[in-house]
């Protein structure tokens, strides 16, 4: 009886620990990677304006997308946060990672066309494939027109 009680405690705690440790390492790695790739694409001008700068004669539709999941540790932290209210920092970092990744994939595509300017960028965030427990994944889709 006592063993099954301990066991039912061990499972969620080990999941939280696993989510925390692996999630942390992955996040740090991803942020370093994002920074490095953003630096290498510094010459590409991003704009959400519709105006076409002078001298541009070719356009190409470009896009980038990423689907992310929320780790177990972050879900627990967020559910505690929901009780008190306020900023949910754990989700904020996750969303900013996803958004930067999607934008970088879009730039990557534009780079294939030797474009130095992306106009009319739109970024869309949506919840996809939500299951019955309300756990969904988030998709960030960034699109724009690469001009050259």
């Amino acid at each position, binding site marked *: 009886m006592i063993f099954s009680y301990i066991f039912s405690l061990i499972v969620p705690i080990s999941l939280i620990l696993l989510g925390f440790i692996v999630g942390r390492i992955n996040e740090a790695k991803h942020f370093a990677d994002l920074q490095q790739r953003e630096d290498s694409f510094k010459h590409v001008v991003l704009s959400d304006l519709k105006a*076409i700068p002078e001298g541009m004669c070719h*356009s190409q539709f470009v896009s980038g997308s*990423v*689907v992310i999941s929320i780790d177990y540790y972050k879900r627990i932290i967020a559910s505690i946060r929901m009780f008190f209210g306020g900023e949910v920092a754990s989700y904020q970092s*996750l969303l900013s990672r996803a958004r930067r990744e999607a934008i970088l994939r879009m730039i990557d595509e534009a780079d294939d066309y030797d474009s130095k300017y992306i106009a009319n960028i*739109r970024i869309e965030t*949506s919840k996809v494939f*939500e299951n019955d427990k309300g756990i969904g994944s988030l998709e960030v889709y960034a699109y724009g027109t690469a001009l050259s």
Partner: protein
Amino acid sequence: MSNMQISNLENIPGTKIIKHLGMVQGNTVRAKHVGRDILAGLKNIVGGELHAYTELLTESRQQSTDRMIAQATKMGANAVLNVRFSTSSVSAGASEIYVYGTAVVVETV
């Protein structure tokens, strides 16, 4: 289909719109399959990108774009302008991707 120009701008640089043909659209609803779901379930513990889902949504976006292009081709257009995308979760495990734009005939100036 390859000569159809797609843009989310209201015009294409170096061209002039000579005819508006009206709105064209394409949509698709895709469900994830069980194999992908099991892997995603594991990924939900540690978090991070779900590559299988990214691929799935990219595929479905391509399909809805193809449907929009097919409709535009039928109308005799050579470009689709002001393209917008929208994604929604229609039911548990299924997502809809909807794409729409304006079919036009453009001419190089």
